[in-house]
């Protein structure tokens, strides 16, 4: 077991800057599903004037508006804690603006190229066309063994994958990374990025379980009663695929 002591340290990075579209729901889902498996969870919310602890097991980062995104990138670079945690093998899951920050660079609110943390081999630019808004359906990388991804996207950014990043999913519906190559999100080893809000884990609790399995270094977890998640998934997938 990779976990420190007997409690899972779940770190929610910069809720003061990066917490739009209910992304803190991801932290709630991971916490709930860990507790349902009898794990002790220590949830650590790190505001942007506090150092990011390096000893977390799972780190979550949400989406944000353009200016807070730049401030968050500046502070994360200066702090260095998240990068150190990543090099120690921590599991990191990021959404939208947070995903862009974990790449090599993105376009900030001033229209300039802002360096990210380079934890995922991606580069983000700003799309010229219409904002990507709406329901997304995508097939997750078979290596990860997860069911179809359902989520809600709302972003202007376009993310290009470098040679070492693997696409997190291939879109069936929606724009995903916005590059036109049908990819959605990306990951390098245990660092994940996606454009999916919703929050994504409310519709895809198996992503939360994947992070838990990686943190615990196990292949399976005790089952949970997922009927409401399943009902919601079925409803949203049907709504996305039916003509309006």
């Amino acid at each position, binding site marked *: 077991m990779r976990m420190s002591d007997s409690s899972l340290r779940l770190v929610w990075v910069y809720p003061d800057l990066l917490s739009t*579209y209910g992304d803190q729901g991801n932290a709630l889902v991971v916490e709930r599903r860990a507790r349902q498996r009898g794990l002790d969870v220590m949830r650590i919310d790190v505001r942007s004037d506090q150092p990011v602890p390096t000893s977390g097991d799972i780190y979550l980062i949400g989406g944000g508006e353009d200016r807070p995104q730049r401030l968050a990138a500046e502070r994360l670079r200066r702090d260095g804690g998240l990068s150190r945690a990543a090099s120690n093998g921590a599991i990191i899951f990021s959404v939208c603006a947070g995903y862009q920050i974990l790449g090599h660079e993105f376009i900030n609110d001033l229209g300039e190229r802002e360096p990210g943390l380079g934890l995922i081999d991606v580069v983000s630019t700003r799309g010229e066309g219409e904002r990507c808004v709406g329901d997304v359906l995508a097939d997750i990388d078979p290596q990860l063994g997860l069911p179809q991804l359902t989520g809600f996207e709302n972003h202007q950014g376009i993310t290009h994958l470098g040679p070492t990043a693997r696409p997190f999913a291939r879109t069936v519906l929606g724009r995903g990374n916005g590059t036109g190559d049908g990819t959605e999100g990306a990951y390098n080893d245990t660092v994940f990025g996606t454009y999916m809000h919703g929050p994504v884990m409310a519709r895809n609790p198996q992503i939360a379980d994947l992070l838990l399995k990686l943190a615990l270094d196990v292949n399976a977890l005790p089952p949970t009663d997922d009927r409401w998640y399943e009902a919601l998934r079925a409803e949203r997938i049907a709504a996305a695929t039916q003509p309006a």
Partner: protein
Amino acid sequence: MSGNSEPLTPRAKLAVTAGKAAAAVSRAAGRGSGSVIGGRVALKLDPDLLGRLAQHLDVVLVSATNGKTTTTRLIAEALRASGPVVSNALGANMPAGITSALAGGSDARFGVIEVDEKYLAGVARDVTPKAIALLNLSRDQLDRAAETRMLAEKWREGLAGSKAMVIANADDPLVVWAASSSPNVVWVAAGQEWKDDAWSCPSCGGVMQRPGDDWFCGECGFRRPAPSWVLSGDHVIDPHGSAWPIHLQLPGRANKANAATSAAVAACFGVPPQVALERMYQVQAVAGRYDVVSFLGRDVRLLLAKNPAGWLETFSLIDPPPTPVILSVNARGADGTDTSWLWDVDYTRLAGHPIFVIGDRRLDLAVRLEVAGLDFRVCESVDEAVQSAPPGRIELIANYTAFQDVRRRVGN
């Protein structure tokens, strides 16, 4: 002060008449009150009509994410102590609806106008208000509205050129930042339970410090202004230090805050707090909100909550457990088509209540409650939910179109 001595121009008169005719046609066709369509017709004929209708009035504008309809109603009641009032009491709060409401009040002295947040700067330019009340600003309908901070920015720009007296909530950093561009501000410590939209300084992006009821930015010095009116429990303290009791039929802390702000507005027009607050007691329900209806033999109180801050204030006013609670959520156009805001609401505050879930998006809500570790039951209709609820008065909390659906069903 202002009377109706200046007549409307012939063009404005024609516009008002045409607007009223359009509203009558719309009403006859069964499309609601017709106020919005009437206003649209009138504005098309005379784009300056809003300003012309308002120049005969002492205008008060009221804007906020939450509480603007109720506060508009409270201010209107208070100002009736001094003269006739015209108001968009039913919440038609965009320029067409406002025009329509003003066109119906040719004998009024005061215009008390609720304005949608996105239109405040424009309406403030058109109607030259005497006073502007700003209650709070928080996230709402995220997938289509501008970002909260950009709204604050628009308010700030709009208020910079206004001569109006601005009555603003000192406890909401976004409101303070928006209002402090105005030279004439009366600060009201009206409180704010919701804090999640103001951890980042609106002025410099620094991290806000929030010890107790105070707040300040550690980086640029932007801080809570000293209030001249203060809501303190069940009393409002005026600038002279006198405490006036707030007695309302409307429930909850948020409505006491609305009353405190309304008293400060009324004082700007010479209505003393005692008189203003006594008149506010008359307000019972506002467009169906807070109404207790009898449905299928049960008493059901109807509560509207449109966004995370609104849900939080509503949780603090409902009767304690084991009072049953029905929750209804839709995600149609007027609600915002994305339900992710559910995750910004702390539903664990409902622990101990029997909970029943209805509405178009009851499954989103079910997952949210499951993750909060609450017991709940998903129902197909308000009928089923009411019939399943254990004895006692039922609290029903719904977002915008869900609330309208429920009102139609229970005949309110």
